[in-house]
């Protein structure tokens, strides 16, 4: 590239700073698709042998019956895992995780929780996460790792016996998988509500800018 061309590139840089780079927006929306499929089919699979005295209504499950749900689940797992790996890898390599999600201090969480409960937590600068956002985004990352590892332990309790052992065996891994799902669904509910409370945040996740 010539010096002129490089300058020309700089000159067309958009003035409003990019809050969410393209790779992040793409992985985010692919993840939405993956989570919807994994959760919907996962609920149908749960219904075949419930861990607790309740089942998920058929109207919100995916797959129609156990075999269909399993086909969806073990197809979308590739989408979820590969997309998740790309997201985590780029999040670390670009320094975005370090810049946006760290440091996370207990004191800040307490302060921001109080502010949030009074409805006074500011969302002026979308590029700066408050302590609650950091806590939730880091938390859901952990839940994502647990849901994948416990899922692998349930899928391959013999070949990946060491992974199953890490969770305390096949039966225990089922509970880890369920609670990690519950954490992800809980996060998603709050996340979607907040996207409607702060619509410019939703816009930024589509266009990249506020």
């Amino acid at each position, binding site marked *: 590239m010539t010096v002129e061309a490089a300058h020309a590139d700089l000159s067309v840089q958009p003035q409003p700073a990019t809050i969410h780079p393209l790779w992040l927006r793409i992985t985010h*929306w692919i993840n*939405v*698709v993956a989570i*919807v*499929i994994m959760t*919907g089919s996962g609920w149908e*699979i*749960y219904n*075949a*042998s419930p861990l607790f005295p309740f089942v998920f209504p*058929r*109207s*919100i*499950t*995916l*797959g*129609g*019956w*156990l*075999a*269909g749900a*399993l*086909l*969806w689940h*073990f*197809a*979308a797992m*590739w*989408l979820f895992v590969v997309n998740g790996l790309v997201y985590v890898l780029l999040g670390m390599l670009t320094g975005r995780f370090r810049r946006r999600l760290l440091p996370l201090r207990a004191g800040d969480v307490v302060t921001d929780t109080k502010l949030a409960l009074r409805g006074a937590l500011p969302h002026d600068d979308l590029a700066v996460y408050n302590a609650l956002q950091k806590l939730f985004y880091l938390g859901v990352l952990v839940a994502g790792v647990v849901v994948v590892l416990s899922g692998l332990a349930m899928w*391959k*309790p*013999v*070949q990946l*016996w060491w992974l199953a052992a890490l969770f305390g065996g*096949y*039966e225990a891994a*089922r509970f880890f998988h369920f609670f990690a799902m519950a954490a992800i669904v809980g996060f998603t509910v709050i996340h979607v509500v907040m996207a409607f409370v702060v619509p410019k945040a939703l816009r930024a996740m589509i266009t990249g800018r506020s």
Partner: protein
Amino acid sequence: MRIRRPIPGVDQNLLIKDAARLLPDPTRRLFLRGGLSVGALAMLTGCNIVDGVSAESVLRKISEFNDGVQAWLFDPNLLAQTYPESAIKRPFPFNAYYPESDIPEVDGEDYKLDVTGMVESKEEWTLKALNALPQETQITRLICVEGWSAVGKWTGVRLSEFLKRVNADLAAKYVWFRCAEGYHVQIDMPTALHPQTQMTLQFDGKELEPKYGYPMRIRIPTKLGFKNPKHVMELNVGNRYLGGYWENQGYNWFSGL
């Protein structure tokens, strides 16, 4: 979707009965039920999402890909975990695609196991002859595709030992089993030769009860429960993919653990 190939030794009337039983339930085939709200699914399947059949064919292709991944992951020397007697679930759950009242009754006196396909010695095996072979006991966990699991104690002949005795072609790709009531299932040769894959004749120290697969069932602790056929009447060694009762309806073929 895979085309149902004619299966040797399967009662065609039973197959038709199965199909008729399945047809009235519209949800059985509609994998997309409850999924139409997911507009973005089109991105994944690359086809019209209203067209349930083509979405299903894509999902089945991925399931076949997963068969390959599982075969690659399978370690022929890795043993499934074994448990102490105290871990055995009593009474052990009965599970089948038919109710307990329809359990097939097989006469052990008349029983003869047909050994067919790529084997040198094709004679029939009586229950007595099977019982005379070296026996082994395993206490392992049976994991059902539904999610539940239970530890049980199975005693019988190593399938690999039997296959060697009948001079089976161990380079063949598959071993296929036909059951008394028409159930059929096929496994890969590496799993058939796994040291814990067993022709089971006893459960929990007693002769197999009818509900657990009398007179002989196949116990495979490295595969899901439905790959462990009961009331086995025929064993076939071959290279032809033959699907299976549940696999033809959409369950994953390899179903390894």
